């Protein structure tokens, strides 16, 4: 068993997180570990593609686009001594996210529109990391306004970009270049890369406030 990150291991070729909780989205659970399926979670794909995050476990995280909590559940295993503010606007997936939040003490569920950070500005504290996976045309704008409200001076961001949701007609490579340029204007880009073969036409970008 190989440790890749805090509470993240490679066990017999499977990516797993150390967890004392049960299955949330149909993943396998075995003696204190939960399988982390890269086809379901872009963060898992990013880690398997070789990019690691240096997390101590007590970080404060703002998660935009929490959906039904697939990735949130694993992130909650990793920052087990921290807090995750999980923002999701759609009621249906939020129901499932609520189930997760009820059993995990480090998740605060927020049914808010991530494009209006002022609406939850009196709830969320300054965070170490903003994670964004919202597949919307103006997702960079949304990231920037949330960073302005909630990101610590040295804070970092991880953003998952789907080429098709930014511009469905343009060549993905071209879309990624323009997104990287846009983010590069406000942040210092630490790393980026494709999520193939787990997620087609997706890239991750890891950046720091500059």
């Amino acid at each position, binding site marked *: 068993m190989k440790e890749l990150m805090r509470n993240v291991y490679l066990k017999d070729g499977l990516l797993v997180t150390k967890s004392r909780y049960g299955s949330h989205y149909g993943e396998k659970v075995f003696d204190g570990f939960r399988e982390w399926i890269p086809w379901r979670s872009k963060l898992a794909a990013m880690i398997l593609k070789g990019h690691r995050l240096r997390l101590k476990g007590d970080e404060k995280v703002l998660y935009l686009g929490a959906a039904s909590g697939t990735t949130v559940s694993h992130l909650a295993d990793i920052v087990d001594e921290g*807090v995750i503010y999980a923002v999701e606007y759609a*009621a*249906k997936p*939020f*129901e499932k996210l*609520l189930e997760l*939040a*009820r059993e995990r*003490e480090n*998740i*605060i*569920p*927020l*049914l808010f529109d991530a494009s209006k950070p*002022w*609406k*939850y*500005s*009196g*709830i*969320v*504290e*300054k965070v170490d990391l903003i994670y964004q996976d919202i597949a919307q045309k103006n997702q960079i704008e949304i990231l920037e306004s949330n960073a*302005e*409200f*909630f990101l610590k001076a040295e804070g970092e961001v991880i953003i998952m970009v789907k080429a098709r949701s930014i511009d469905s007609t343009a060549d993905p490579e071209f879309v990624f270049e323009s997104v990287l340029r846009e983010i590069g204007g406000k942040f210092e880009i630490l790393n980026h890369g494709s999520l193939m073969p787990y997620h087609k036409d997706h890239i991750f970008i890891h950046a720091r406030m500059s």
Partner: protein
Amino acid sequence: MRYNLWFGTYDGKDVEVSENFEDSFLRAENPSPLPFNIFELGSQVLGESYYRILRKTALKVSEKQIERELKREDRYVVALVKALEEIDEATNMLSEKLEDIKAVKESDITESFEDKIRNLKELRKEIEREIEEVMKKIAPNMTELAGAKVAAKLLERAGSMEKLVRFPASKIQVIGAEKSLYKAFSRMKKGKKAKVPKHGIIFLHPFIRTLPKSKRGKMARFLAAKLAIAAKIDYFRGEVDESLYESIVKRYEELRRK
């Protein structure tokens, strides 16, 4: 400057602690980033249980919000049922035109016509599946009693779950047969003999359709009564009550044997 925080308001010096955290949670709006650390300020007021109270409040508020949101799904079903009816009309109209064209000449255009009609039929199936899924969630008892199709049509005629739960059973029994119902009423007013309809949309239910004519009225009355109860359970409680379905099966068997 007054800051709106989830646990109260802050004027830069003192915190006025909210009497109801759920209310202040939803009012925690500020035009620009807070120039202070909300966790530190909150801990002065709430102590070590800051995160525990925050999480509890967030859970409570979002549970309520979700409940309200999901209740709005009835409007979605209403829109879907209307769309379904339009699609049926369009499909029929197109099929007629296609026959007209075919009668005159077999051409390439008839193929693309057939394609479009097939697409519409597929869309129809998709919408039906979606209606079924949502109906199971928002009206599980009605769906079990009458099937998603009939239940959704009743909901569409009523306009919303809120209105449907206020309908008496006698109204549910004749929804969809308004024309003949009012015709009968106006005849009665004039002192003439009149036939009041026994069933509207619920006639589509196999338990009514498959009975001999003389027994359909009894079954319709019974089914409508149970549907009226089912709608109320769905709207106010949301849990499935199996005894309702058992009772209509029993009544159906009785009427069939007699």
